[in-house]
């Protein structure tokens, strides 16, 4: 056991094209994870086999339900380490991501989660250049750019699985903010996000907007209820 023991949770679906690159970015970390829990959302390509044979520290499991939120909720209670981080099957970590973020949490014991800056990149050519060019962003609380304490999920609860593909990130952070979550940030790029035509905000745009509408309505109802 080391002070730096952490697990990586990766929800994946039909990712055979990019998953190896993502895994390589984990195995290039200056501090390796204790385990990688890959939750496969019933891929129809070779994702499951590719991942299973890659390394003995990888545990691959089928998502008992479907969706990212369900995958994360299934994986989090299985984590046996103090720290948890997340990675998507098309994104890449910078080599010092885990070391610096866990170091930050060790030095700041009252911080629940720490995040870092993000670099968007686009490796493929698109006729319709409708995407943000390669560009650096200030830290934001993307799960994939963050490291959490396992206790953070005990404190602030699991993800809401009923609010759609986009909803869970908004609902989880809104509730956590109300409950006083403390987030730290490192102003250094630790995540590279691949921008492509199949990014969920591009493909599921309408669903994304519908989710925000539902959240707004819920919030209005909840606050009206609190006032009475």
């Amino acid at each position, binding site marked *: 056991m080391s002070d730096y023991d952490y697990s990586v949770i990766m929800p994946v679906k039909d990712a055979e094209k990019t998953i190896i690159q993502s895994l390589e970015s984990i195995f290039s970390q200056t501090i390796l994870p204790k385990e990688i829990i890959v939750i496969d959302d019933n891929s129809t390509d070779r994702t499951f086999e590719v991942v299973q044979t890659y390394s003995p520290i990888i545990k691959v499991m089928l998502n008992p339900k479907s969706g990212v939120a369900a995958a994360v909720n299934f994986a989090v209670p299985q984590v046996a380490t103090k720290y948890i981080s997340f990675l998507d099957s098309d994104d890449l970590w910078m080599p010092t991501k885990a070391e610096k973020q866990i170091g930050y949490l060790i030095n700041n014991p009252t911080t629940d989660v720490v995040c870092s800056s993000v670099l968007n990149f686009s490796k493929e050519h698109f006729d319709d250049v409708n995407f*943000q060019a390669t560009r650096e962003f200030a830290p*934001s609380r993307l799960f994939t750019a963050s490291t959490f304490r396992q206790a953070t999920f005990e404190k602030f609860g699991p993800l809401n699985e009923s609010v759609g593909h986009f909803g869970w990130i908004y609902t989880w952070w809104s509730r956590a903010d109300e409950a006083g979550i403390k987030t730290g*940030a490192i102003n250094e790029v630790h995540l590279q*996000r691949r921008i492509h035509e199949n990014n969920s905000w591009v493909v599921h745009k309408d669903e994304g907007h519908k989710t925000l509408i539902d959240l707004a309505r819920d919030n209005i109802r909840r606050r*009206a209820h609190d006032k009475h």
Partner: protein
Amino acid sequence: MSHDYTLIMAVMNAEKYIGQTLESVFNQTLLPAEIIIIDEFSTDRTVEIIQSFSPNIKVLNNIRPGMSAAMNFAIPLVTNEYIAFLDSDDIWVPTKAEKQVAYLLDNPEIDAVCASAINFKKEQNEDVEFSASREFAPTRLFTASTFRAGSFEKYGFLDESVGHFGWLYDWWSKASEGGINVASIEEVLLHRRIHESNSWVSRQAEANQTIVNIARNNIKRRKINFPEIK
């Protein structure tokens, strides 16, 4: 009839001007019922300055990268009737909120109301110099407007995939197609600070490319078939 409005601001390392900006908010003849500020993890004194104005200002950290994501995070949190936006380097005229909210109260069929803006240049923090300024007719800058909160439910949230310069054009394009009713007040209610780090100055090429992309999107969405060039 409620005059309550929420002010939404996205900020990052804005210590130089945020104090003046917030002063212009707290000098409003109609104060906001709520202020939500999305801070992109500023490393300077921005948050400290914000908190010195009022402990009731809600300061939250962004959960996805970019300005449009910040606004999509904040808008669903609003429970008031009206929403206004302000940038961390711009200044409202004291009657901005009062006039725009009154306008929306008097005109229930209007979704959003905008106003004229004046550009100003200044280098020194203390010495506000409006002489190099230029006045513009009303424009639909978010920071010069007040919206009914329901407008975003009706016409959609901001598209996070079209970039820093894209969301504003994209949103108004779609809202116009959806039939949004916009009115304007022919009076300067916003002072816009022009400086070298304005993103339109520092990232001009990206901005221009974005506009081309949005135009292409609009053509595609509206299914406009231009004759092929032979």
